[in-house]
């Protein structure tokens, strides 16, 4: 198990290197510069001298290869560069936002798991029942509804009409502020989880070893507890992992909508003004998050299924 864990963790390293290179290449070819975007309000003509000075300051007029070397060596020292706009280290900027982002992602995922998995399980145990039908209709609706629209509806209902919860903002970081964005963000993974759980459990229920379990004279409840639960966990963990990993990236829209001070809104703001170091840094962090979750999922797999360690 230790060697398996070590191998999985080491496999993350080359992926990060490749991703870092890709990010650099992409942002060295996108049109527009920070300097130009500063003067892009249309009121004033851009002062060529000013642009030249800014480019000089940020090293943007150096050859691509040289910039690349600086980028890589900085990265190796965990230095993500300095923001063009605030002149702060990108690491600090991300650090400030990471807490709020994690809070949102964890809350959304917890909501999705706590509601989605039991619903999918019950639906699979009684296929064709009212609960099953309602759950699956709900899941399809949840999957097809655009998140920002759902967010607006929630705001209107719970903040404006009922006045139960604050409509937006981080506030003092209390639970009241967290509920609306987390629930909105959690609806898609919830719907997906309910569906995959149902499919996974149904699959296991039709397996030969479940027939064996019944032939031993087990009650339905024991069959589910002893044989179905663990076997359907593999598919559930996969879905949870994939969703959790991409949740911070997905949160961009929700963070913007609810004015939530996370990584996502930092990314959107920075793209708009071509604050490339911040954009590169945030994307790298989002990718890193995805990789961490993925590796964690692989380790959980190995703990669930003895066949995986063998390979």
């Amino acid at each position, binding site marked *: 198990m230790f060697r398996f864990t070590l191998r999985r963790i080491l496999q993350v390293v080359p992926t990060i290197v490749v991703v870092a290179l890709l990010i650099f290449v992409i942002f060295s070819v996108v049109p527009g510069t920070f300097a130009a975007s500063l003067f892009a309000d249309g009121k004033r003509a851009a002062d060529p001298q000013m642009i030249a000075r800014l480019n000089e300051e940020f090293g943007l007029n150096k050859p691509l290869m040289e910039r690349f070397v600086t980028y890589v060596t900085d990265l190796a020292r965990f230095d993500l560069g300095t923001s063009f706009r605030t002149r702060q280290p990108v690491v600090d900027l991300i650090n400030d936002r990471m807490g709020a982002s994690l809070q949102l992602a964890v809350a959304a995922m917890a909501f999705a798991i706590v509601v989605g998995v039991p619903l999918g399980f019950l639906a699979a145990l009684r296929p064709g029942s009212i609960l099953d039908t309602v759950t699956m209709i709900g899941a399809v609706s949840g999957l097809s509804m655009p998140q920002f629209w759902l967010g607006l509806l929630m705001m209107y209902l719970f903040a404006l009409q009922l006045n139960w919860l604050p409509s937006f903002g981080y506030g003092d970081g209390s639970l009241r502020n967290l509920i609306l964005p987390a629930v909105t963000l959690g609806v898609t993974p919830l719907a997906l989880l309910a569906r995959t759980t149902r499919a996974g459990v149904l699959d296991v229920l039709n397996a030969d070893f479940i027939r064996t379990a019944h032939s*031993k004279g087990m009650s339905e409840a024991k069959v589910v507890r002893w044989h179905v639960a663990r076997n359907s966990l593999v598919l559930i963990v996969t879905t949870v992992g994939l969703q959790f990993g991409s949740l911070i990236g997905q949160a961009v829209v929700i963070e913007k909508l609810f004015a939530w001070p996370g990584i996502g809104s930092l990314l959107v703001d920075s793209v708009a003004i071509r604050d490339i170091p911040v954009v590169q840094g945030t994307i790298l962090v989002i990718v890193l998050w995805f990789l961490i979750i993925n590796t964690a999922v692989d380790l959980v797999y190995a703990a669930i299924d003895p066949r995986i360690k063998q390979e």
Partner: protein
Amino acid sequence: MTTPLLDIRDLRLVVSLGRSAHHPLLKGVSFQIMPGEAYGLVGESGSGKSVTSLAVMGLLKRPLAVSGGEILFKGQNLLALPKREMRRLRGNRIAMIFQEPMTALNPLSTVGRQIAEMFVLHQGKSWGEAEKLAVEALGNVRVPNPDRRAKNYPHQMSGGLRQRVMIAMALACSPDLLIADEPTTALDVTVQAEVLRLIKELCAARGTAVLFISHDLGVIASICQRVGVMYSGCLVEENETRALFEGPRHEYTRGLLGALPRLGSRSEHGRQRLVDIDSIISDRSKLTESRFIAPRDLEGSQP
């Protein structure tokens, strides 16, 4: 005369095709198994062997349903038994071995634990005690190093070993009746022989009756005292194994035996051709309607 252990009377099964329509699968099957007897059911795929055994176990799933008849086990009609009572019999008094040892065991649970479940369920043992009994049960089916093997997962075992695990599980509570549904079909021939011998010896030692289902006549001949031949949902012929092989009365049985390759069998043209059942039975649908009263049967093969 002793009372039969299992007495199936005019069992009828249907597969429902929607609200009111249904198609018959078993059209009145009756046979008896005496205590300690090995009874074989042969027949082609789809003849109703397996569904008969599932009906005895009470494991029929929709859209399959019993539409008539009785299954008496020690005089008790299993079809009328409440679910809870049936669960107490299942695995405990009537146990079953399935065809596919590859998929019939839970891949995420050690085989020891899966055998131990039997003792926990039916004998009220603690898990600790049950695991010890499971090791013993593995030894009884001649698995080498049973205490180490009990900690194995199914994927760490060969097909033959897994089928031994299934046998250990089925015989854990010394049932009165063992249903073996093609238990050796998925195994290669040498392993097949070992597993058959194991079933035969263990059941003989415990006085366990066996309902052995197979389409392999050779396997049936080596293990069963009596054989029933099924075709298209009916039991078309039933006899002592030896008598059936020597003098099949029903034309389907004759076809079945004719399709059996025999080493060194020759006709005057050189190699003898195997008989194709369809060439014997000209019209299958007519056969079903006439309920299989074979012409030879009337000629009087009775002594």
